[in-house]
C-alpha cells in the first residue's frame, strides 16, 4: 500500500487507484485521512492531565507505531480515538465521523464496525472454542446476536472466521478451547478476530508485550503483512523499539501528554528514542 501511495504522490498513478478506500478529507499528500485529532485533551481527574493537546493525522494504509514511556498516555489516546473514554477537549475524526466528547450511538456503531482491536492479553473468552472467539469479531454488525457462539452463528460468519483463522495459520485449532493455546497463538486468534470483518483501521495496544521475543516478532510480522495485504491502516503501541521502527511506516512518540516526535520510521534515530524516554 505505501508504495501505491508513494506513486500517487509522484503523479505516476491516477488518483482512483486508491480511491476504493475513500476515507474522507484529502490531505496535501493526496491520500485520504482515515483518522485525525485536533487539540485532543484528556484528564481522568482535573489535577492530572494525561493528554494535553494532541494533533495527529493518519492516512489510509499507513502503519503507525505509537511509543512513549509508561503512563505517557498511549493507551488513553487509543481509547479516546474510538470513544471508549470520553475526551475532555478537542476533536476526533475517525472515518468521516467527527465527535468532540464521545461519538453518538450511531457514530460509535459505525466506527467500531470498521475498526479492529487487539489488546495486550487476556482478551479471549477462555472457555470458548477458538472458532467462537473469532466469530465474536462479527458481533456489532447486522443481526449480531447469533455471533456469541460458533454453534449458532450464520454459515457465512463461520466461513469468514475460518478464513481469518487460516490467515493466522490456526485453522486446525478451530475447535480447541481458547485457553488450551499458547500466548502467541492466543494473540494470533485475537488478530483473526480483529480481521474477520475486514476492518479499515486496526488498533493494537502492545500486541506483543506478553509474548516471548520470537512469538512477539511473529505476531508483529503477521500484523504488518496482513495490513499491507488488505490495505488496513494500523496504529499500534509498543515498548519494543525494534518493532516500532521495523513494522511501521511512521513513528509517533508521546511525552508528557504531547506529541514529542512524529516522523517516518526510517528517519528515527537512536537519539530520538533516547530523548523520548529521558526523564
Amino acid at each position, binding site marked *: 500500500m505505501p508504495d501505491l501511495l508513494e506513486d500517487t504522490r509522484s503523479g505516476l498513478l491516477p488518483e482512483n487507484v486508491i480511491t476504493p478506500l475513500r476515507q474522507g478529507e484529502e490531505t496535501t499528500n493526496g491520500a485520504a485521512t482515515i483518522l485525525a485529532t485536533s487539540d485532543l485533551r484528556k484528564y481522568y481527574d482535573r489535577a492530572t492531565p494525561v493528554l494535553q493537546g494532541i494533533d495527529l493525522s493518519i492516512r489510509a494504509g499507513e502503519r503507525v507505531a505509537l511509543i512513549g514511556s509508561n503512563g505517557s498516555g498511549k493507551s488513553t489516546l487509543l481509547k479516546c480515538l474510538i470513544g471508549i473514554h470520553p475526551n475532555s477537549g478537542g476533536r476526533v475524526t475517525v472515518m468521516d465521523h467527527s465527535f468532540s466528547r464521545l461519538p453518538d450511538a450511531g457514530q460509535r456503531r459505525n466506527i467500531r464496525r470498521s475498526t479492529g482491536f487487539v489488546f495486550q492479553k487476556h482478551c479471549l473468552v477462555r472457555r470458548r472454542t477458538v472458532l467462537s472467539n473469532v466469530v465474536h469479531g462479527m458481533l*456489532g454488525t447486522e443481526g449480531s446476536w447469533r455471533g456469541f457462539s460458533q454453534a449458532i452463528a450464520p454459515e457465512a460468519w463461520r466461513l469468514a472466521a475460518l478464513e481469518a483463522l487460516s490467515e493466522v495459520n490456526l485453522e486446525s485449532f478451530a475447535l480447541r478451547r481458547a485457553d488450551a493455546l499458547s500466548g502467541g497463538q492466543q494473540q494470533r486468534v485475537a488478530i483473526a478476530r480483529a480481521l474477520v470483518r475486514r476492518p479499515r483501521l486496526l488498533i493494537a495496544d502492545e500486541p506483543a508485550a506478553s509474548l516471548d521475543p520470537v512469538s512477539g516478532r511473529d505476531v508483529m510480522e503477521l500484523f504488518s503483512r496482513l495490513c499491507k495485504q488488505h490495505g488496513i491502516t494500523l496504529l499500534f503501541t509498543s515498548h519494543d523499539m525494534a518493532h516500532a521502527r521495523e513494522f511501521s511506516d511512521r513513528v509517533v512518540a508521546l511525552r508528557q501528554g504531547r506529541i514529542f516526535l512524529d516522523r517516518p520510521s526510517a528517519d528515527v534515530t537512536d537519539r530520538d528514542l533516547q530523548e523520548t524516554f529521558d526523564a
Partner: protein
Amino acid sequence: MPEARDTLMPGRWSGFSPVTFILLVAAGGLILSSMQSVAPSPKQLVDGVPGMVSLVDRMLPPNTDPAFLKRIGLRIVETFQIALVGAAVGVLLSLPVGWLAARGITPFGRGGYLVKAFVSLLRTVPDLVWALLFVATVGLGAVAGTMTIIVDTVGFCGRFFAEAMEDSDKEPQEALSAIGASRMSILFGAILPDAAPSLINTSLFALEKAVRSSVVLGLVGAGGIGQELKVAFDLFQYKNASMIILAIFVIVLVMEYVTDRLRASLQ
C-alpha cells in the same frame, strides 16, 4: 538505642480499645444471663433421659407394613418432584435476576442494588415462613411447597449468580464491547461461559438445599414427606415416624451422593 526502638515497637494490644473491652464484657454478661432462662439445667437433662428412652422404645422397630411403605414411597417421589421442579425453575429465574443484580454488569446501573436487596429479602425470610405464606394463598399441598422452593432458590442462587458474574473475566468483556457487541451478546458470549462452572456448582448446591427443605415443608402442610411425619407425631404413631425419619435420612444421603458425583464429573 533501646528507647528509640521501644517507641517504634507496635503495641501488643493495639486495636484493643476500652470500647472493645466494654463490648466484650457486655456480650459475656448477655450470654450468661440468657443461659439461665433457656439452657437446660442438669436436672432437666437427667429427668429427660427416661422420656427419651421410652420414646426410642416406642419408635422401634420402624413400621414396615407394605401399604404404609407404599404411601411413604409416593410421598418420597412427591418430595423429589417438589425439590426438582422448584430448584430447576428457581435456577432459571435466578439467571436473569443475577444478571440484573450484578454490579458493573446490570443494565440498571445503581438500580442493581435494589435487585440485590430484593434477593436478600427472599433469602432472609426462612423457608418455613414462605411455606406458611404460600399455604395460606394457594392452599395445602405440593404446589405451595414448589413455590416455596422456587423463592428459596432465587434467594440463594440470585446472590451467588450475581457474584459469579461480577467475578467473571473483565478483559474479554471489554474486548467484545469494543467490538460493538450488545449487552446480550456480551452476556452470552463472555460472561456466562466464564461463570459457567461456578453457576453449575451453585445450582447443584441449590438442588441439595431444595431436597433438604422440601423434606420439612410438609410440617406446615406444603406437601412432601414432612406431611407424613407431622401426621405420625400428631397421632403418636412413633413406629411410622421412625420409618419416615429413616427414609428422610436415605433421601438426603442419596442426594448428596448424586450431587457430589456430578460436581466431581464437572471438574
